[in-house]
C-alpha cells in the first residue's frame, strides 16, 4: 500500500499547485483557444476528439496497470501465473487501435483538405518574415509596411516595476483585416526561416526564404488577435510578435484610404530636402525601431556579433561608406540591406542621426536626394 500513498501524495501536490490558477484564470490557460475562424473551430474540435480518445484509452490501459500494481504484488503472497502467449489477443489489440485511428483519420483528412483550399480569396496579403519583424503587403492596394515589437525597452530590461498587459505581444503597426472576407496569406521570408503563428486564426505557416506558401482565414468576430514567431530565427526570435486587428468592412475601407494617403505623403517627403533638426528627429525614430535591436538604443551594440555604432569607423569615417552599409548590408554578417525596407528620407535621417548622436559628433549630414543618387548609381 505504500505505493498508493506515494501516488496520492504526488497527485494532491500537483492538484494543489494547479487549482488556484484554474480558478483564477478560467479554462483558456489550459487548453487551445477556440479561435475565430471556421478552420480554428475545426481544429479545436479535432483536438478535443483526439484528446478524449486518448483519455478513454488511457483510463483503460492505466486502469489495468494500476489494478495489477495493487492486486498482483508479491507482498500479497501472489504466485505468478504461467501464461505468456496468446495470438488472438495480440491480433485484437492491434486491430482495435487501428479501427480507432481510421475513425480519427477521416475527419482529420476532411479538415486538412479545407485548410489547403486557398482559392477564391477576397484579399491577398503577403507576409514576409525578417530578422526580427514582419512585413505586410496588401497586394490588391499597393500598401506595404513593417510591424515591429513596440514593448518599451524599459519593460524588457526590467527598469519599470510593472510590465504592460500585452508585454511582448504588442507592435507599432498591426495587420488590419476585414471580418467575413476570405483572406489569403502568402507567407515568405527575407533571410532565415520564420513561422507566422496566430492561434486564434488557426494559422501557423512557416516563412521560408525564396519560396511562398499559402494559408487562409475568414475571421468571424472583430477583435485583436495576437501571436508570435514560432520558428527559431536568431537572437531576437522571441521579440517579433504578430498582432492582427480584425475590423468591419467599412472601417477596413477607411483604413485603406488613410494608408494610401499616407503613402503619397511619404513619397513627397522623400523628394524634398529636410532640415538637420527634422533629420535628427526622424533619424532617432528610425534608429530605435530598426537598428536598436542589435546596436542598442544608445549605439553601444553587443560585440562581437553586433558592433557598436558609437565611435565606429563607419559612423565616424567617410559618409559614402556609411550610406552603403545601411543600403546594402554587409554580406556574411547579420547586417541586413535596409535599402528595400526604408525610404530615402528614413535612410538620410538615420545616417545623419548616427553620425551626430549616440556619442558621435561628426557634424556632417546627408539628405534625401543624395540617397536617391546613391541608389541610382548602384543600379548602373
Amino acid at each position, binding site marked *: 500500500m505504500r505505493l498508493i500513498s506515494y501516488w496520492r501524495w504526488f497527485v494532491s501536490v500537483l492538484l494543489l499547485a494547479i487549482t488556484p490558477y484554474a480558478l483564477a484564470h478560467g479554462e483558456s490557460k*489550459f487548453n487551445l483557444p477556440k479561435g475565430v475562424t471556421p478552420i480554428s473551430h475545426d481544429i479545436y474540435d479535432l483536438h478535443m476528439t483526439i484528446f478524449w480518445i486518448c483519455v478513454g484509452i488511457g483510463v483503460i490501459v492505466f486502469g489495468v496497470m494500476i489494478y495489477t500494481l495493487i492486486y498482483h504484488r508479491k507482498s500479497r503472497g501472489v504466485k505468478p*501465473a504461467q501464461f505468456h502467449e496468446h495470438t488472438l489477443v495480440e491480433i485484437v489489440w492491434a486491430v482495435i487501435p487501428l479501427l480507432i485511428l481510421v475513425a480519427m483519420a477521416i475527419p482529420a483528412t476532411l479538415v486538412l483538405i479545407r485548410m489547403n483550399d486557398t482559392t477564391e480569396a477576397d484579399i491577398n496579403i503577403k507576409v514576409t518574415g525578417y530578422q526580427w519583424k514582419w512585413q505586410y503587403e496588401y497586394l490588391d492596394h499597393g500598401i506595404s509596411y513593417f510591424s515591429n515589437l513596440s514593448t518599451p525597452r524599459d519593460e524588457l530590461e526590467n527598469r519599470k516595476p510593472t510590465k504592460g498587459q500585452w508585454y511582448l505581444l504588442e507592435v507599432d503597426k498591426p495587420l488590419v483585416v476585414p471580418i467575413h472576407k476570405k483572406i489569403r496569406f502568402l507567407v515568405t521570408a527575407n533571410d532565415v526561416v520564420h513561422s507566422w503563428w496566430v492561434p486564434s486564426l488557426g494559422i501557423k505557416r512557416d516563412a521560408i526564404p525564396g519560396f511562398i506558401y499559402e494559408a487562409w482565414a475568414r475571421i468571424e468576430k472583430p477583435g485583436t488577435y495576437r501571436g508570435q514567431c514560432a520558428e527559431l530565427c536568431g537572437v531576437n526570435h522571441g521579440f517579433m510578435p504578430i498582432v492582427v486587428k480584425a475590423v468591419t468592412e467599412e472601417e477596413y475601407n477607411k483604413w485603406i484610404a488613410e494608408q494610401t494617403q499616407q503613402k503619397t505623403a511619404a513619397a513627397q517627403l522623400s523628394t524634398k530636402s529636410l532640415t538637420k533638426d527634422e533629420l535628427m528627429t526622424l533619424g532617432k525614430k528610425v534608429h530605435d525601431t530598426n537598428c536598436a535591436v542589435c546596436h542598442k538604443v544608445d549605439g553601444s551594440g553587443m560585440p562581437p556579433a553586433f558592433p557598436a555604432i558609437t565611435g565606429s569607423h563607419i559612423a565616424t569615417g567617410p559618409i559614402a561608406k556609411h550610406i552603403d552599409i545601411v543600403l546594402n548590408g554587409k554580406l556574411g554578417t547579420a547586417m541586413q540591406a535596409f535599402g528595400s525596407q526604408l525610404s530615402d528620407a528614413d535612410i538620410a535621417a538615420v545616417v545623419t542621426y548616427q553620425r551626430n548622436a549616440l556619442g558621435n559628433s561628426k557634424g556632417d549630414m546627408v539628405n534625401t536626394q543624395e540617397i536617391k543618387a546613391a541608389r541610382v548609381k548602384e543600379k548602373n
Partner: protein
Amino acid sequence: MAEVITHETEHHHYEPGHEKTLGAKIARWVFTTNHKDIGTLYLWLSFLMFFVAGGMALLIRTELFMPGARFISPEFFNQMTTMHGLIMVFGVVMPALTGLANWQIPLMIGAPDMALPRLNNWSFWLLPFAFLLLISTFFIEGPAPNFGWTFYAPLSTQYGPPSTDFMIFAIHLMGLSSIMGAINIIATIINMRAPGMSYMKMPVFAWSWFITAFLLLGIMPVLAGCVTMMLTDRHFGTSFFNAAGGGDPLLFQHLFWFFGHPEVYVLILPAFGIISEILPTFSRKKIFGYRFMVYAIVVIAVLSYVVWAHHMFTTGIPLASELFFMYATMIIAVPTGVKVFNWTATMFKGSLSFETPMLFAIGFLFMFTFGGFSGLMLAIVPADVQYQDSYFVVAHFHYVLMSGSVYAIMAAIYYWLPKWCGYMYCEKLGKWHFWLTTLGMNITFFVMHFLGLAGMPRRIPDYPLQFEDFNRIATIGAFILGFSQLIFLYNVIKTIRGKNRVKASAEVWEGHHGLEWTVASPAPYHTFSTPPKID
C-alpha cells in the same frame, strides 16, 4: 592466421587492476579492447555529459523563471538550448545505450566479447574528442552554435557563427562512432551467439539493439551528407539550401528529419528492450508475446523511415504528402500500442515486487505511454498546426525521451550494476532517486502542455505575462529533477566502491532470467571463453 593466434595468446592472461604506474593505468583504458571496459567508458562519458547538459537545462529554466531579461542574454540562451539538445541526444542517451549494449549483448548472447574489439575501442575514443570539439565552441571567438539542435538552414549556413564548422566536424565524428558501433553490434549478433541460441531465442534487448543498429546504418550517412552540404554551402560556394542560388531550405529539413525521425527510435528502441528485460524479472513471469514484441520493433523501425515529414507539417508541403505522412505516423501507434499492451500483460497476474529498476520501468511504462498519447495528438495534421513548435511539443518529447529513454537507462543501470561491480546498490537511496525524479519530471513537463496549448512558442528567452505561473512551476520542477540526479551519482559511486557491503550473488534477482546471471558477480574480465550451451 598466425597473427590472430599471437593476439589471442598475448591477451589471454591479461587481468586489469595490477597496473603499477599512472601511465599504465591510463594506458589500460586508452588501449582496452575489452567489451566490459569499453561499456564502462561509454557509461561514464554519458554520465558526465548528463550533468553538463542538465546544467544547461537549469540555466534555461532559471532564465524562464520570470518574464524580462534576467539572468542570461538571449544570445547565450539560444546557445544553451542548442547545446542542451545536441549533448542530451548525442552525448547522453546514445552513448549510454551503446555502453549498455557493450556490456550486456556479449553477456546475454553468450559471446566472449564484441566481434570487432579494436573497432570498438576506436568507436568510443572518437567521442570524447567530438564533445571536446563541440564544447570548445564556448571558448572561441564569436558565439557557440545558437540555432537549435535541429540547426535549420539558412540560420546555420549563411547566418551561422564561425563555430558552426566545429559542430559540423563534431557531428561527423559522432556519426562515424555510431556507424562503427552499429557495425560491431550487427557483426556480434550475427556471428557470436552461443550454440543453440537461435534468433528467436535472443533476449529482447539484443533484438532491439540489432534492429537499432540497422537504423543507425541507414540514417547516419544521411546526417553526414547533410552537414557536409552545410559545410560546402558555408565555404565552397554551393547553394544546396540557399534559394538565391537555386537551392531550397526545405531540402535541409527533409534531409535532417530523414535522419532525425529514425534517430528518435534509435533512442527509444533499446529502451524498449531494457524494459522487456526488467518487467519479467520483477513480475516473476515470462515476457508476454515475445514474438509479437520482436515483430513490433521491426515494424516500428521500418515505419520510422517513412514518417519524417511529420516534423514539417507547417512548412507548406503538398496536401498529398501531408496526408501520407499523417497516416503513416498514426499507424506507428499500432505496434507501439502492442508493446505497451504486452508489457501490461507481462505484469498481469505476476508476482510483483518494487525494487528500484522495477520502479523506473513502471515509471517508464506510465509516462512513456502518456508521451505516446500526446504523440498521437501531434500526428493529426490540422491540430499539429497549433501544437507545432510550441511548448506542447517540448512537453511531448521530454515525456518520451526523459521519462522514456532516460528512465529506461536508469532502470538498466540499477538492474545490471550489481552484476558489473559485485555489490548491491543502496535500495533506499534508489527509491528516493526514483520518487524525486518522477516528482520533478512531472512538475517540470506536465505544465508545459498547458503552456503550448495556450500559445507559448518554444526556444524563446522571454515570454508574455500570461505564461508566467506555469513557467515558474516548471522551473521549480526542473531544479528538483536536476538535483535529485546527484543522489543517483552518489549511489552509483558508493556501490562501485563496495561501501554498501552487500555482496551480490550471481543471480542477483529472484526472478532472474538469461545468460548474464549465470556468470559470477562481479562479472569476470573474460566471460564465456567457452560458449555456454543453450537448449
